[in-house]
């Protein structure tokens, strides 16, 4: 339910469906929330885990791969690593 609400919120807040993840994105405070946010943005989540107290998620979309680190206290991106 919370996931749905979050997705609805994301959709509402950002009319463009293929929104990109940026260093300013707020993705969520738990593994599940961050995964849901990225999925809602059209990314395929490959792996999500806790790494040194941060949420780390591997994602791909349209031939692009990336890794994002999220601070679970603020839900904000702390590091974004996009590869080719």
């Amino acid at each position, binding site marked *: 339910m919370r996931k749905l609400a979050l997705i609805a919120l994301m959709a509402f807040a950002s009319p463009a469906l293929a929104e990109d993840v940026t260093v300013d994105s707020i993705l969520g405070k738990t593994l599940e929330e961050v995964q849901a946010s990225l999925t809602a943005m059209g990314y395929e989540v*490959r*792996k999500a885990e806790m790494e040194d107290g941060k949420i780390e998620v*591997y*994602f*791909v979309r349209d*031939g692009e*791969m990336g*890794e994002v680190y999220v601070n679970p206290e603020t839900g904000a991106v702390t590091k974004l*690593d996009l*590869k080719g």
Partner: protein
Amino acid sequence: MFIVTRQYSGRESAREIAVWDPLVRLIHWSLALTILLNGAFLDAESKSHEWVGYIALALVGLRLVWALIGPKHARFSAFPPNPVRAINHIRSMFEGDRTIFISHNPIGAMMVYNIWLSVIAIGVTGYMMTTISFFGVEWVEEAHEVIFGWLIFSVMLHVAGVLFDTWRTGVNLVRAMVNGRKNIPEWHDVI
């Protein structure tokens, strides 16, 4: 007394045999360096980690080609991958046989192939992690790490084996990999 005398004369007239050509030595120490760099110094997420890994792969590739076209002692035929020979070698070693193999001895040969295959497997899984199909795929990452652990264990065994065989036969194997020459004490048979 006679035996002691013979040993002394043997030591004095120890033969030096050129075994490892410059390319074999260069590849050996370069590969050791790439393993050290990637295992201990470079950030696993960095570009340099990737490049050093590809260099390691290229070194093994070059060595395999050299094992086909290189000098006699560097060739596959000088140290065939043969587990039966390795087991026989262990047995005859315990029976006191001190025959010296000019190239790798049969157990050393198995270690050589093990290390090369491990490096190839680590390189291939490492490359896979950079492709869209396998990026972030757990089993690939795990395989990369587990095989690396196996490689480090193998390298430790390799070093232990080199020290043991140097002690057992009197042939300084580390020196041989540096200057290419094996000092063969005279009382040994040589294959």
